[in-house]
């Protein structure tokens, strides 16, 4: 079982992101379970949502305390809550920022872990560029597909088409495609470094 936790703020599409992730996994014939952290939703407040992916029925209903991957939709959360809590030693981290982990003071963390599984992505900018709204969730999903290989870009695109239509779907697909390529490039750079 692969477990993903997404952190963000109310209004950033955190819950939608886990739902779309579960749809993408379902499209690949896998079992998936997405659920929010069940708080009172308020715009701007910290929000957490979860997604499990497995090849068999998922019966477990506890919150995800030891994720295999963490997606952080808002870097300002780093100063507010322990977003990395419980992350598995070989876990993946995708962070929405145009800064580097080093610039954010996270160099030590990278040293202790598999640095090639850590990636940043300017997802808000990509959302603005392609969809016209500063919503980072879909670019991050595509970035996660590139970083982890847990789901394919085509499945993310299928999930986008299920959730959105017309121009919004087109914009999101463009954002997803660029995000996927950007993360793949960063991974290549890291591998060659």
């Amino acid at each position: 079982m692969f477990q993903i936790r997404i952190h963000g703020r109310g209004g950033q599409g955190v819950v939608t992101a886990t739902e779309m992730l579960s749809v993408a996994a379902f499209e690949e014939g896998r079992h998936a379970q997405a659920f929010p952290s069940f708080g009172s939703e308020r715009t701007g407040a910290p929000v957490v949502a979860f997604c499990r992916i497995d090849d068999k029925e998922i019966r477990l209903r506890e919150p995800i305390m030891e994720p295999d991957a963490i997606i952080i939709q808002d870097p300002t959360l780093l100063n507010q809550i322990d977003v990395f809590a419980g992350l598995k030693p070989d876990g993946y981290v995708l962070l929405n920022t145009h800064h580097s982990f080093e610039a954010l003071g996270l160099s030590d963390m990278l040293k202790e872990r598999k640095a090639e599984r850590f990636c940043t992505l300017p997802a808000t900018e990509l959302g603005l560029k392609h969809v016209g709204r500063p919503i980072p969730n879909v670019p991050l999903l595509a970035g996660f597909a590139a970083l982890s290989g847990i789901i394919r870009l085509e499945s993310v695109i299928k999930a986008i088409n299920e959730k959105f239509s017309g121009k919004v779907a087109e914009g999101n697909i463009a954002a997803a495609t660029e995000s996927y390529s950007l993360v793949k490039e960063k991974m290549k750079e890291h591998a060659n470094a």
Partner: protein
Amino acid sequence: MLKQTEGSKAVAEAVALCRPEVICAYPISPQTHIVEALGEMVKSGELTPCEFINVESEFAAMSVAIGSSAAGARSYTATASQGLLFMVEAVYNASGLGLPIVMTVANRAIGAPINIWNDHSDSLSQRDSGWLQLFAETNQEAVDLHIQAFRLAEELSMPIMVCMDGFILTHAFERVDIPSQEQVDAYLPPFDPRQVLDPAEPISIGAMVGPEAFMEVKYLAHAKQLQALELIPQLAAEFKQVFGRDSGGLVRTYRADDAETMIVAMGSVLGTIKDVVDEMRDEGHKIGVLGIISYRPFPLAQVREALKHCKRFVVLEKSLAVGMGGIVATDVRMAVTGTGLHGFTAIAGLGGRPIPKDSLHKLFRQAEKEELEPVTFLDLDWDAVNKQLERERQTRHSGPIAENMLHDKGIVSAKFG
């Protein structure tokens, strides 16, 4: 059709396939998405003929359902928590009048302290209301139980609550097989009411009944629930023939054959329990599970049968009879009267407290060694409790308990987990 969808959306689609003619509801978390989706289906014409009635409260929702059901319309509503409490007088009337209304309860805690999260306090508070109560383990079962519930309600002429864990199921996206209209039509015939208000043949429903007949009327409500004990397994078997899967029934066991310790529970926590039991089985523990689907009527004989070979059992329940202990546990103990079985009660998950596998592993191992107290509060913060008790001993003006507890725990913003 197999799809990845939200529990609430799946239930809304299942209810629509049952061709309800009147839906009346008042929004309350975590039930809102269900009636929102149904409202959209009625507005778009996808669900027709059906009248969606916006009401001003839950009391009105149940009152409208009573009226429309008495007029011969298949009637549906949904609620949770304080909403259910607000409609209670009408809830008792619906069952007392024998009207086959189906209502989803998206189980949620009851305040005060106000809390929107899941436990089973709300529907269990209506234990003796005369309504049947069926508990879903998964969203697939929630879908299937709604289809069975309309059939069961109308055959008995009694109302049914289909209970699903708020947020944990209602807001979870998982794979659900939504049946076809043909399948549902083959299973659920049109509503043929035993009693109907018809201007062409006027009758009254709801007579005042004095001491000379009241007990008989009440006994007949009890008799209907006893009939349901026969009917529920039959309808589940028929469901399997039409839809090809096991869903519903009275109880369900898991890895129980040679189990010395049995865990009894209702609802979605059964999934987590099964995972823990699998892990413990791998280590050689003789442990099994009894899931109760039908809480009312309570299947005393089936529970007794399922537990008769074990040495001890733990009833893990998301409810608390304050001043007494377990609610479900009381019924389970009634079922095993005279067997000499050792029973433990574990109160867990109140107000949305997570029920993690680690805590269950510890609890079940303690149960195996019979080291548990008769009533255990899973993951209760005793330090916090004792601090408040001490405060109350020390000072007369100890203040509001909920506020003290939040202050002691240093809760300032939303947390996860």
